[in-house]
């Protein structure tokens, strides 16, 4: 970790590299995050409606539950698990390939700190982009719930809107964003570590990608529990 911050390149180069990585991590992940979060919101709405089949419970509760589940858990955690698969494998595979094809050595021979040049921008970019994707996932999940709820006649549009506006706790958003920062750091740093220290050939690059994803997912789930315990 210390090598990331020693002999760093100029701020301009670090900025440009971070923007490049943010585009790779962020823009390229919008589609999958949008699909996953929309359907998660939709499925959550339908399943909650199925389980809340009680005349004494107002239908607007479905909207409330979709919002709470989405903001507190589904948007940050499921989005991060999806990104662990997509971004984590891409980071580990990319760095692993650079390592076995001597591209990392080429940087070192030029007198460039390869860890700082390659890894630091990925971590910073993930820290910037993950919370944005999580906010997008929150919005789309709630929208997915709205569409599914009204199309299947589980509840009316008015009931859903009443539900998602009721008893709103702004801290939950803060909590979700804190979690997304933690998950971003874990996924980007674990995947970078696995990729950067790859040695061997194509088989090892594949193994590094797989290990990066599994380790990242486990780390996200453990961190999710710890965050919930500490911050709620």
């Amino acid at each position, binding site marked *: 970790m210390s090598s990331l911050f020693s002999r760093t390149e100029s701020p301009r180069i670090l900025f440009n590299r971070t923007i490049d990585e943010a585009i790779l991590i962020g823009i390229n992940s919008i589609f999958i995050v949008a699909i996953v979060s929309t359907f998660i919101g939709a499925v959550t709405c339908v399943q909650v409606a199925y389980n809340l089949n009680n005349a004494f419970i107002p239908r607007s509760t479905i909207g409330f539950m979709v919002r709470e589940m989405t903001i507190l858990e589904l948007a940050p955690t499921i989005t991060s698990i999806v990104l662990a698969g997509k971004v984590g494998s891409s980071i580990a595979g990319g760095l692993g390939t650079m390592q076995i094809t*001597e*591209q990392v050595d080429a940087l070192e021979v*030029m007198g460039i700190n390869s860890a700082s040049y390659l890894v630091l921008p990925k971590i910073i970019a993930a820290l910037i982009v993950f919370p944005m994707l999580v906010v997008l996932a929150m919005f789309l999940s709630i929208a997915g719930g709205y569409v599914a709820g009204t199309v299947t006649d589980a509840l009316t549009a008015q009931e859903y809107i009443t539900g998602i506006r009721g008893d709103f706790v702004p801290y939950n958003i803060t909590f979700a964003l804190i979690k997304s920062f933690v998950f971003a750091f874990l996924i980007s740093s674990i995947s970078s570590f696995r990729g950067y220290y790859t040695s061997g050939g194509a088989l090892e690059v594949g193994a590094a990608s797989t290990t990066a994803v599994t380790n990242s997912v486990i780390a996200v789930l453990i961190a999710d529990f710890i965050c919930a315990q500490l911050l709620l």
Partner: protein
Amino acid sequence: MIEIHNIHKTFGDKKVLDGISGVFETGKTNLLLGASGTGKSVLLKCIVGLVKPDLGSVTFDGTYFTNNKLDIRQEIRRKIGMLFQSSALFDSMTVEENVMFPLKMLAKMPKDERMDRVNFCLKRVGLENANKKMPSELSGGMKKRVGIARAIAPDCTYLFCDEPNSGLDPLTALKIDGLIKEITEEYNITTIVVTHDMNSVIEIGDKIMFLYEGKKLWEGTRDNILDSDVPKLNEFIFANRLMRDAKKVEEEENGSHQ
């Protein structure tokens, strides 16, 4: 001039380099010759600092490199150009960006000047029209040329080539060898080439160091390598049928003269 003194390197139980010393002269193409697994590439990596030797030292034009202060090592590294066995071009960059990369990172020069230098280097290696190509679109020989252009772009003083001919057809290999030799003489730089190719020895071996099982067994030039009395070197040279035939012809000619 690069001097190495008593370089030792062990990986686990395996002794890869065993007390190698030598001098690599400026303006000459210095070859590290040997069979696969004799420690040539490891020695090259020890010299450029990619692998830290267990014992021994490397000196670049009188400046101590191994274990010296980081900023001094960095200063020396900025004078090093290296052509890797796999070319090691950055996949995500075009040819132009690859050659410009060290200039962008190391040299403080205006953008126009950088571009001129890139075009000059690409022209020098015979790739004038390849600026916008991606590495995946290049042949093996072209990749090596781009690697050479990237190595010489920041006005390097030391050029290292790790098996520049591997995977190339004989004609392309010959061109790459010629290019390395031309550049070495033109810019008066110190060049070290790792090879096991006898054609390279004959074509460009101004000075040759033969390694066997991590030890230096022989040192000389291409003019006297065929006369060596080192059995392991002779075994290596004459493993090639062409070389055996050449030796036979030479002996017959000598016999007929006597």
